[in-house]
């Protein structure tokens, strides 16, 4: 079981405190949306959880073990990280990019590469270069690279921000469904999708957790209005509710 937890995380860079004594615990499976206004520290939290940024104080535990104690390879196999922006320096083909993602597992099982290419509908694009792909195609390539090895933990830093509505829905659904049998933590700007598709929502504000709970319960909390500085209307739609920002 690969639960993830952050204990008393402090992150300071250039004299500024980006994460302030933040503690969170995630079970081995579940979908979690991290929301919050710009500058709340969401992206930095993702990087700290992924072991990409070392915290100034506190520690991140994966399956009970501190992440820095894991070898780089073990960490790469256990945690899949989808960055907010991804632009490879060299104009690699789709096949090369997905292969690099598959190979990070070290002992890649034969057939994983072909299966990933097929799963993310990239068969016709195998030989295409990154520079020739559309935004939606790039999103699928990135998902294939990171999810090819089925890491037990997925950390996604709002990877759908630049996609059109259809591709954004596809991507967010994929990320949320990933949490059915593994842990999927996704930074979301779209509150509507966050509350509709994810089981749990963590609201961040200025480097700390302002609210944390199930999406169903948290949608009513006034903390949301306070954190975003907006008065939300809770609109009943079907068997659930959606947030509508009042003007």
């Amino acid at each position: 079981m690969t639960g993830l937890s952050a204990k008393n995380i402090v992150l300071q860079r250039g004299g500024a405190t980006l994460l302030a004594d933040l503690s969170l615990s995630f079970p081995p499976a579940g979908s979690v949306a991290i929301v919050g206004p710009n500058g709340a520290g969401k992206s930095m939290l993702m990087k700290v959880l992924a072991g990409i940024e070392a915290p100034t104080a506190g520690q991140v535990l994966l399956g009970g073990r501190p992440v820095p104690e894991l070898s780089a390879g073990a960490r790469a196999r256990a945690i899949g990280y989808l960055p907010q922006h991804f632009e490879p320096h060299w104009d690699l083909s789709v096949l090369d990019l997905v292969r690099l993602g598959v190979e990070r597992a070290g002992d890649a099982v034969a057939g994983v590469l072909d299966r990933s290419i097929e799963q993310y509908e990239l068969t016709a694009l195998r030989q295409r270069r990154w520079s020739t792909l559309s935004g939606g195609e790039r999103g699928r390539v990135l998902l294939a690279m990171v999810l090819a090895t089925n890491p037990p933990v997925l950390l996604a830093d709002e990877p759908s921000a630049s996609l059109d509505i259809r591709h954004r829905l596809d991507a967010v659904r994929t990320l949320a469904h990933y949490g059915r049998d593994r842990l999927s933590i996704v930074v979301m700007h779209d509150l509507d999708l966050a509350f509709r598709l994810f089981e749990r929502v963590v609201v961040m504000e200025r480097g700390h957790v302002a609210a944390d709970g199930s999406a169903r319960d948290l949608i009513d909390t006034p903390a949301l209005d306070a954190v975003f500085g907006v008065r939300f209307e809770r609109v009943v739609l079907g068997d659930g509710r959606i947030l509508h920002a009042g003007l």
Partner: protein
Amino acid sequence: MKPWLVLLSCLVAGFAVAACAGHDWATPAELVRAAAGDDTMRSRLLLEWRLPRVIASAFVGALLGLGGAVFQGVFRNPLAEPYLLGSAGGAGLGAAIALLVPLGGLPQSVMLPLLAFAGAWGATASVVLISRVAGAVDAAGLLLAGVAVAAVLAALRSFLMLALSDDTVNLQVVLSWVLGGVQTPTWAGLGVLALISAACFGLALTLARGLDVLGLGETMAKSFGLDVRTFVALAVLAGSVVVAAAVAYGGLVAFVGLAAPHVARWLVGPLHRPLLPASALVGALVVTLADAIARSALPPAEIPLGLITAIAGGPFFIFLLARRLRA
């Protein structure tokens, strides 16, 4: 398969032309006779002088192409060049000391490659140290530190050349080495160069996957399990070893390390596993042909190899720069 066939065919053809080229051009039949053991003076000259020189040029070019591909990969910048990091400048200073300063002990043929290696290592270590002290261990920080160190090393080399050249030291020898040029080795010396080249090739190949992952960006590379800081430092040092070997045997030959990886990338794509050997092959072809021109263009004089590569490589660099700026 096709690009490799094209590359190897071009190299064989280039090698044949270079073996024929010289003050006095040889025919393919004369080359075959020399290789078969013909005992005439002409055949012996071809076998003992021209062929080792051509093969040595190919090795020097391969090392320059390899070093360039490593540096461009590590800095994720197609305009990065071994010379920018100070490694070539350090090797140049070390070699100038070997040529100008009477050190005693070991013969110059041994001292020169040794001091070139030491200079390249020292310069690269200085660059890495300076960038760390300045807190800028990223690619831009290393490149800027490299430019500064290279400038200081070039000034020191010029000072040594002015201060220590006297009646006993032939300044022209040093100058011609600084301007680049492959010396004719013995067959035994060529064996040593072949071993060094093979070791450098093996060393560079171990970096291939790391360079590919690094090309995804530092954040992605870290998430893919690459210890970016350690890898960059090791790759820079490994690239310096390759460049030092090239400088020790070929002097300061500009632009091959820049151009060869570009041509190789057009042929085999940007993935480093094929790119590294392809860059070595393109570098070998370029220097073999450039050396042939150096030996045959203005008989009986020999044009410094570095001048030919600079004349051809300068416009290529400007073309790349213009294309990049437009993009």
